[in-house]
């Protein structure tokens, strides 16, 4: 029998960037193939080629022995390939059942054939342990449920091969292990699964075979049973990079304190904060964990002056903040490294040097009293920031958009740290970066802590939190727990709290 999927000599470049080169592998029914690699290694491009979003420059994709028409997602779907994207593609205002029916029904029929569909859906739910209420509306569901629905949608369309792109990015550890159980059931019933991830632990836990990609090329293919984490780690990055280690540091008085902070819901993504009280001392890194959407974003925005609380005070260095604007907070010594660095951090179409001084519109060294920009001083300041923080570029005039994610983040951190901030709020600062950049980011945060700054680190990467934080708070449904000492918690206990344990008292 021909394998479920054969990928033969796939190559794809975008201009001068080679995203995939000479990639060949197969997936058989009944196995989980993990594709492992750093961000930018070419995993997503490869999946988009298989699924028909992109057209490969060379090579073919065969499904059950037959060549797949390239560049056409419909061909992939008809051949039985289903893809669950990292960002869900669900209609929020429809129910589970309606979402599974989207795209399966003829537009010429006046009614939905939903009774039949419901039966099939319920059967699939039971078979694979993907428990979900068929009549629930998507906007009421948790991230984990939405993901189960995405998987159900592919199964409903009789997929033989399911591609999961970074499926655990916003799940609690407990939800993730539930997902893995379902994946095992799927393969034992004869399906094939491709799992894309950069988390070694998960891949070791659930996959049968592993392919490691680096800079668009296959570094190696190996059986999971024969692989060790260490070996995989080296294959991913090419060489071993040490992450910096947290050492004890001197603590000072609280630099920022939140008192009874409440906020309103400002838009769909944000959530309310409910009675938050916390204090971050100088020389302390406070880790903030929680499943995405439990108020971490709002917390960061209140602490940086982006939203005004409806109740309570933010007290910075002993003084109650009165004006809630980003600039007012910046002038009090607050720095904000936002989660979405390409949309909230840099202006992609402006040059590297302009981005390096974007926060300095009130800096009298760079702007004359007649409001003229001192271009020469700006450029040399930018060059300083880039060389101190090892930002690599071809020209300081090139648009920031053309930098890699790691260099963009180093540029952002550099420009904020050049202001010698006393309070730093960093959201997902290492998400999507390669090992080298992650270690540089961690180094910067630890250096700021060492120089007496108060650092708030919001991250979904629990290992990162545990490696860097002195104290940790958990957020759930807009509430924040009391801070835990780093030594008193581990991944399991944090995961339980992220799922709401211990929040009944609020």
């Amino acid at each position, binding site marked *: 029998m021909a394998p479920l999927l054969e990928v033969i000599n796939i190559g794809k470049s*975008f*201009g*001068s*960037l080679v995203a995939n080169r000479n990639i060949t592998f197969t997936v058989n029914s009944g196995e989980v193939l993990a594709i492992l690699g750093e961000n930018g290694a070419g995993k997503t491009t490869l999946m988009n080629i298989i699924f028909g979003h992109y*057209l490969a420059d060379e090579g073919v994709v065969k499904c059950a022995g037959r060549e797949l028409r*390239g*560049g056409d997602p419909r061909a992939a779907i008809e051949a039985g390939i289903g893809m669950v994207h990292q960002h869900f593609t669900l209609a929020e205002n429809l129910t589970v059942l309606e979402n599974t029916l989207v795209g399966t029904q003829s537009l010429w029929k006046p009614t939905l054939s939903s009774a039949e569909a419901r039966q099939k859906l319920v059967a699939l739910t039971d078979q694979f342990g993907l428990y979900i209420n068929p009549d629930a509306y998507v906007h009421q569901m948790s991230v984990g449920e939405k993901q189960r629905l995405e998987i159900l949608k592919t199964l409903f369309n009789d997929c033989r091969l399911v591609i999961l792109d970074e499926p655990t990015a916003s799940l609690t550890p407990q939800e993730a292990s539930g997902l893995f159980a379902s994946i095992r059931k799927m393969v034992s019933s004869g399906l094939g699964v491709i799992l894309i991830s950069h988390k070694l632990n998960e891949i070791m836990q659930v996959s049968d075979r592993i392919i490691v990609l680096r800079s668009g090329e296959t570094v190696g293919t190996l059986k999971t049973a024969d692989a060790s984490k260490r070996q995989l780690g080296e294959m991913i990055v090419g060489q071993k990079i040490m992450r910096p280690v947290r050492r004890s540091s001197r603590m000072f008085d609280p630099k920022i304190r939140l008192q009874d902070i409440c906020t309103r819901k400002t838009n769909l993504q944000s959530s309310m904060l409910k009675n938050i009280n916390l204090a971050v001392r100088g020389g302390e890194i406070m880790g903030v964990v929680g499943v995405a959407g439990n108020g971490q974003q709002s917390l960061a925005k209140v602490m940086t002056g*982006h939203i005004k609380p409806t109740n309570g005070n933010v007290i910075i260095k002993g003084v109650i903040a009165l004006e809630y*604007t*980003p*600039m007012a907070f*910046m002038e009090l010594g607050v720095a*904000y490294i*936002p989660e979405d660095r390409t*949309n*909230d*951090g*840099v*202006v*992609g*179409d*402006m040059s590297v040097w*302009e981005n390096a001084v*974007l*926060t300095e*519109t*009130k800096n009298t060294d760079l*702007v004359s009293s007649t*409001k*003229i*920009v001192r*271009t020469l001083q700006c450029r040399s300041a930018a060059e300083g920031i880039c060389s101190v923080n090892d930002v690599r570029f071809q020209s300081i005039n*090139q*648009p920031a958009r*053309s930098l890699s994610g790691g260099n963009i983040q180093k540029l952002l951190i550099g420009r904020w740290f050049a202001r010698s901030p006393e309070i730093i709020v960093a959201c997902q600062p290492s998400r999507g970066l390669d090992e080298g950049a992650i270690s540089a980011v961690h180094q910067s945060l630890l250096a700021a802590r060492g120089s007496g700054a108060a650092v708030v680190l919001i991250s979904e990467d629990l290992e990162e939190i545990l490696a860097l934080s002195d104290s940790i708070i958990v957020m759930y449904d807009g509430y924040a727990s009391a801070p835990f000492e780093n030594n008193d918690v581990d991944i399991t206990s944090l995961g339980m709290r992220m799922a709401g344990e211990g929040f009944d008292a609020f």
Partner: protein
Amino acid sequence: MRFEARETIPQWLPWMTIAGACVGTLCFAAVLIAAAGAPPLVGFKELFIGSFGSRNAITETGATATPLIFTGLAAAIAFRAKFWNIGVEGQLYAGALAVTYFGTGLIELPPFLMIPFLLIVACVAGGLTLLPMVLLRQFMRVDEVVTTLLTNFVIILLVSYLLEGPWKDPYSLGWPQAAAIIDAGVLPQLVPRSRLHLGFAIAIIAAIVIWFVQSRTIFGFSSKAVGLNQSAARHSGISVTKTIIFIGLLSGGMAGLAGATETIGLKGYLTLDLSPGFGYTGIAVAMLGNLHPIGVIFAAIFMAIIYVGADAMSRAIDVPTYLADVIVATTVLAVLIGQVLVRYRVVIRG
């Protein structure tokens, strides 16, 4: 055939596509001239002679370009900040109303004070006309395309009411026009016995000043950031609302100057046909000028050549003057297509 995004865009590419768009448009116009029964090359010759061939033709082209530079600047300033001010026509009339109100005898000053005074009130009037729409957009997310467009009709109807009623000049023999601007407020001619007035020089100076403001001042720096990525600008401590309000005032102000210079420079009094759609053509000028103040000067002159030359061409070889509108519209379409080609390269394969 597929489109692929370019990773880097060379600086010269946008200008090349604009030049290409102009050439392409002229080729298309040649087909239309031929279809109208005249030899295209003769048509273009007449068009060029009509717009550049004599002292009179050159001054006429300059006079037509003047309001287009101002309206082009108004649109370019706003569009750069992604504020879609479609109300330039209305702000133009607001400027004209202001100079008519103050310049027909209410205030009398010597010319060296009167003219700057009138220009300033026109500028303020244009800016204030746009301000409510800026505030609505920034604070209540009301679509500015709709509000600015509709304001045009409100203001033009107001002008119509004033010219038919309270402001109607009793000596105008029944024509709907306002009283003449007092002599001290009239812009001097740049070339004697022509319609080319000081407004042309003011327009060029305005474009250069705006270029300086945009490229060298911190306001220009902030507004560039706000235009390209509001969120990143906000996160960097730039006050987006304040910047957009300034941009709105400046954009409306330029539109007001267009109305003022037409009234006190070209006509001498306000009429309802003061602007044959200069406000809307200004949008085309801004696009053709790549939203760059200096580009706007050249784009306005190009448009003026087409309009003035097409009139001459139609007289000489008997083709319809509507060709001018067709050429302008085609240029805009070609520039828009060109913008796609700037961002994406076409890959012809598979």
